[in-house]
């Protein structure tokens, strides 16, 4: 009897492992072909020499004082940006999760807009706000573009939504009665939050912190524009070595340094997250939000709205204002004309290209990332699976420039020649989007009570049906957020796309960058106009997503 039972459980466990490995197969293959292979190609080109390796180059490069300076600046500005982002955005996560106020849906989309803007445009918008001849300069003679503050503020601007959505998403589903239980035991509001809610939010905060740190650690467009000659991150340095100095070897070495640093961070992260996650009691998000009450909540709401207005909306408003800064919409009308000097097509065509690529990239990212998240759900998984978890995050850490450059040199010759195909761009964008999908879905998937799955299995549901009937309804919200992130990332992706988008098929960010790279007021104005259009497209897309989200939530 006991023997038979052991055999059955053993077989079930093996079947479970087999199923997990099966789920992993697609993401693993995807990463092998589109990530590992191109990265290997670029590393080989940099470090390899006549069939041998020159590992000593690593030390040579890292020992250079200017490189050391870059490494130090990259690290401390990332730490400062992350701390500042958490400080500013955590109250907003609370406000969006727990308070009900008119216009919340729209505002949720508004705070996400900066995140989908190309980094180049973020940089330019802040230049227009705090730079020479910028708004603050005009008004009070204040200039921040020579200080690190411009970079830090732009990073907060850019990453605000990461914290609000990742942390707020989980927060809105935490049972408020846990906090009430603490309050009844004599904990003040703040203590109840610190001792009950904060630990429960731990995984989501850790995930958001990691994301923000990695984004700011690998920040490219923002630093390129606002850093000037003084401030340079590893990413900017890689780009400079690749495209200005054409020193592929040094670029490759820097890539490896970045790779190692990011790998170390991710390993630490995977460890802490695994220890902290506990099965939370999730409730429907629609029942947890309340109208603000008391002076404290109203003050918090007002503070968050004020921050959003000054930090997020103002730069965008300045951007839009600049695009209209010519009589008769001259900048916009110039977009439709094919004058042939910057592009082979009218700049306006970039909109269609961008949307097409983004939809395809989102589909790929959600499919591959969703499978990966599903295979990683069980926390008791083995070492192999955990390693895979960390591996999935690598495209976040490795520079987008490297991904694009790797695509360019690895996928343009047999055995895999995709140079002429349009799918190359969505593939690169999906690669960058997948970590978002995984990071957004995993905390929620893991927080689903395992007993619910067991209940479904006992009722005769196959593993696939269990996922479909139990996990999916509960994580539907997270899945949509993940898709939104993937879409946003694709739409704003610049570092990789700039290498592989064909000249006659530019995406919006690429078109903006090319226009910005040329002198002349008309080009600058057109860049502003195109950025404004990108902003509007993003707002519309996000509003649709938000709408979809509420409808689905109503059904749950």
């Amino acid at each position: 009897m006991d023997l038979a039972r052991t055999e059955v459980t053993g077989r079930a466990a093996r079947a479970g492992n087999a199923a997990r490995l099966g789920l992993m197969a697609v993401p693993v293959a995807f990463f092998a072909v589109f990530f590992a292979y191109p990265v290997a190609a670029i590393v080989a080109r940099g470090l390899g020499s006549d069939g041998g390796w020159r590992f000593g180059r690593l030390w040579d490069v890292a020992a250079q004082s200017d490189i050391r300076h870059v490494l130090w600046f990259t690290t401390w500005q990332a730490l400062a940006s992350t701390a500042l982002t958490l400080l500013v955005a955590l109250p907003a996560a609370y406000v969006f999760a727990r308070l009900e106020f008119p216009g919340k849906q729209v505002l949720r989309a508004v705070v996400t807009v900066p995140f989908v803007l190309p980094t180049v445009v973020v940089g330019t918008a802040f230049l227009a706000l705090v730079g020479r001849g910028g708004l603050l300069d005009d008004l009070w003679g204040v200039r921040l573009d020579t200080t690190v503050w411009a970079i830090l503020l732009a990073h907060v601007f850019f990453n605000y939504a990461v914290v609000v959505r990742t942390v707020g998403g989980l927060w809105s589903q935490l049972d408020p009665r846990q906090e009430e239980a603490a309050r009844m035991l004599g904990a003040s509001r703040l203590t109840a939050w610190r001792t009950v809610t904060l630990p429960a939010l731990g995984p989501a905060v850790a995930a958001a912190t990691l994301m923000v740190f990695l984004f700011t650690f690998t920040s490219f467009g923002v630093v390129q524009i606002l850093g000037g000659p003084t401030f340079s991150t590893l990413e900017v340095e890689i780009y400079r070595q690749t495209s200005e100095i054409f020193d592929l070897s040094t670029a490759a070495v820097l890539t490896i340094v970045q790779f190692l640093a990011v790998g170390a961070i991710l390993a630490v992260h995977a460890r802490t997250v695994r220890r902290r996650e506990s099965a939370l009691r999730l409730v429907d998000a629609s029942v947890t939000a309340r109208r603000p009450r008391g002076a404290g909540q109203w003050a918090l709401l007002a503070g968050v709205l004020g921050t959003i207005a000054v930090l997020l909306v103002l730069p965008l408003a300045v951007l839009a204002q600049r695009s209209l800064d010519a009589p008769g919409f001259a900048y916009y009308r110039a977009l439709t004309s094919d004058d042939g000097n910057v592009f082979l097509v009218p700049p306006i065509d970039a909109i269609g290209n961008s949307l097409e690529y983004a939809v395809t990239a989102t589909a790929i990212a959600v499919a591959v990332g969703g499978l990966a998240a599903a295979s990683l759900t069980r926390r008791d998984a083995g070492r192999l699976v955990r390693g895979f978890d960390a591996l999935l995050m690598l495209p976040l850490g490795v520079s987008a420039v490297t991904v694009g450059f790797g695509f360019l040199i690895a996928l343009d010759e047999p055995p895999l020649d995709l140079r002429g195909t349009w799918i190359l761009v969505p593939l690169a964008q999906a690669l960058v989007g997948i970590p978002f999908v995984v990071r957004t879905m995993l905390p929620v998937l893991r927080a689903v009570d395992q007993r619910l799955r067991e209940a479904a299995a006992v009722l005769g549901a196959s593993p696939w049906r269990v996922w479909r009937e139990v996990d999916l309804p509960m994580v539907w919200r997270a899945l949509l957020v993940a898709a939104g992130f993937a879409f946003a990332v694709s739409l704003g992706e610049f570092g990789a796309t700039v290498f592989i988008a064909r000249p006659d098929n530019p995406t919006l960010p690429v078109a903006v960058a090319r226009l910005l790279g040329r002198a002349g007021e008309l080009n600058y104005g057109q860049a502003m106009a195109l950025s404004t259009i990108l902003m509007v497209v993003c707002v519309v897309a996000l509003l649709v997503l938000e709408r979809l989200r509420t409808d689905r939530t109503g059904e749950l």
Partner: protein
Amino acid sequence: MLLELERATVRFGGRPVLDAVDLSVAEHEVVCVLGPSGSGKSTLLRAVAGLQPLDAGRVLLDGRDQAGVPAHKRELGLMFQDHQLFPQRDVGGNVAFGLRMHGMPRIRQGERVAELLELVGLPGAAGRAVAALSGGEQQRVALARALAPRPRLLMLDEPLGQLDRSLRERLVVELRELFGRLGTTVLAVTHDQGEAFALADRVVVMRDGRIAQSGTPLEVWQRPADAFVARFLGFDNVVEATVTEEAAVTPWGKVPVPSGSAQGARTLLVRPAGVRLVGADEGLRCTVTARTFRGTHVAVHLQPEGAPRLEAACTLRDAPEVGGVVGVSFDAAETVVLD
């Protein structure tokens, strides 16, 4: 009075969930609010706790108005319906939580936790994870956690709702004994009348945000205030009747009522014990539709011709077969004129 509610009112979207409720709880008293789901009993607890602001009326503790006193300063204990134990803390961490909040020194915390776990019958469980506890054990931990800071008033929301019957019956006795021994003042809400009657010194029946009746379990059981309370307590022999002196005219014919009953158009309750089975040719002719064994007696369901069903209680030996025809007479001692 330890706790007084004066015309306490809470509205959700304009609809009153608590409708001008007056309620008082004396020191060392165990009061149980009984009502169907949606009657506003949980909102009542939340309003007392300070988790739900009142739209009108007052909550007084020891005669002091609690408006503006935040939940954590009211020195009340609340045991949640689904316990709400903190999953990230072990048993000891849960029980010690309130002590930490009140700034008790660490050494004394440990002593008090041990003392309380002993009290609720889980000695030495401090190091266990809450996820590994059974339903009954979670219940005990939740109770220990609520009692630890010595609240002025302990509130219980469906205290035994999720437990199996035998455990529930055992725990009710334990709770009653414990509260008596500790002199705890308790305000509990439940939808289970057995629980309420077993636990409470005084039962308060709620309906649609209002108090329908308040009294000792015996009073409520013997003289339900109205048809709603009677039906909620499980009495189904309730009909409209016209009372004239010591008889009532009902669809079941003339039913004798105790002397001194209210006169005129009333609602009449006949307890199952007051429905006597007699020969088929005497009294009200009924068909037996069902028999339910109730342990101490058999409930016999009867269908009179052209009148509402009746439930009779009789011994197993006397219970007629299903489908049989019997006559029914009524006992004045077991009838109550309501209103």
